[in-house]
């Protein structure tokens, strides 16, 4: 059961991190007038089109102790990123970023500007306006981002295999364990993992679509 536990632990941590960075990032993309934002917008969406192995490959190179960043992290901060759980978190955050940012971005884009301006005219700061007016009104978008980021992290394979490898209890996630068991011809164990992933994903999405039917009443 360890790979399954590890998978859900990773998905939970990654979703929490993505929520914290996704909201300000989406706000900046939508409200900033900087031309640089189109570059950032493109970078955020890159994981949607690239094969996961490409991102995994670059992360592996970037964080590997032979090169500058990895060497710096390992020798000065004592953090090893490649083939560790930390590496999985970093890789998954980057890889699931568009699944969190894009729904929030869409929610913000359809948010009526007059409500924001009304709040400003009442003397409220952008921060207070964000958490008391904007976020409560884009709950369906936030929920979509959370569910998609969580579900997508559960379903990862390529990135985590490249950067995390296959260390039991450390980086062997359910998706990798299935591959591993099949290679070892343990079809029964592989089938068990697969079934749990199918059921869990099904119910997460089912609950999500049911709640999103009446999005404002659930919170």
């Amino acid at each position, binding site marked *: 059961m360890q790979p399954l536990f590890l998978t859900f632990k990773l998905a939970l941590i990654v979703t929490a991190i993505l929520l914290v960075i996704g909201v300000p990032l989406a706000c900046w993309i939508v409200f900033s007038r900087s031309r640089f934002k189109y570059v950032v917008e493109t970078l955020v969406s890159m994981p949607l089109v690239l094969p996961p192995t490409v991102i995994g490959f670059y992360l592996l190179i970037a964080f590997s102790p032979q090169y500058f960043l990895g060497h710096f992290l390992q020798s000065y901060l004592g953090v090893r990123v490649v083939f560790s759980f930390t590496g999985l978190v970093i890789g998954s955050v980057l890889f699931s970023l568009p699944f969190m940012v894009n729904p929030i971005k869409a929610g913000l884009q359809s948010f*009526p500007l*007059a*409500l924001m*301006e*009304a*709040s*400003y*005219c*009442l*003397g*409220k*700061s952008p921060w207070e306006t964000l958490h*008391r*007016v904007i976020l*409560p*009104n884009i709950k369906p978008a936030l929920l979509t981002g959370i569910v998609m980021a969580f579900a997508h992290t559960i379903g990862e394979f390529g990135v985590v295999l490249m950067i995390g490898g296959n260390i039991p209890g450390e980086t062997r996630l359910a998706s990798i364990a299935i591959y591993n068991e099949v290679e070892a011809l343990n079809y029964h164990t592989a089938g068990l993992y697969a079934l749990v992933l199918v059921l869990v994903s099904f119910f997460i999405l089912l609950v999500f679509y049911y709640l999103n039917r009446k999005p*404002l009443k659930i919170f």
Partner: protein
Amino acid sequence: MIKLRFKKEMHTPQGKEWLDIDLNIPKGEFVTLFGESGAGKTTFLRILAGLTQPQEGYIEVGGEVWFDSRKKINIPVQQRKTGFVFQENSLFPHMTVLENLEYACGDKKEHRSISEWIAVMGLKGLEAQKPDKISGGQKQRVALIRALISRPKILLLDEPLSDLDTNARLSLQDEIIKVYQKTGITTLLVSHDLSEVLKLSKKVFVIDRGKIARSGTPQEVFVNNDVSGKFKFTGQIIEVQKDGVLNILTLSIGNNVVKVVASDEEIAGLSIGSKVIVAAKAFNPLILSQKK
């Protein structure tokens, strides 16, 4: 006293225009900005509120400089705290009527004034309703209270009545007069409805393609000086019929459709949809009580 002097480039369907304003508004006055859509009325209010920045200019309200392009002063919208009522519904949809008003309150005194405002504006019993459960007129009443509750220096009304039906509009006009008399707050109303301007304001600025074309009392601006009618109505032409040497105009005035005769000279330059003033003099009308 509000001193305004600014230039702002506007992009209109007719191309680039400059909104070029230079005027003073005495404290406590009720002023209307009148003009076609796209003339720059809304931009005017937004610049005053701090929601839009002019290219250059100087804005002073009650002795405080809010904007000075030379000295690079630009007080942010939050600190200007103007009471702004938007054209469209701008109530926060996830909050109840009461929560919308509480959001606007700064101190305890303002919180205590909520119930008084609710009573004055006839909104008792609606405190717990969400905005989508109340009528358009009620929404704008709430928006009006929300704009006023923290006692701003100026009240900016950006065509707050334009989306309402005639009855709701008339009663909200009365509420605005009441609010103005109660608070004495300097008020700027944007409107393109002639009867509204005549009813509400003491002073009107007509904005045409970004410039102040005319100003004065509504009477001076809209009524030709040679007419001193005993009573006047503003209406809109809905039909022009030629009948011998005369024309029969069908007008919509308030809720009513009336027919009047007009000479060829009188209707020169007018067409269906034109706004006109119908005035009569040397004539005593009959006053009859209305059957209910």
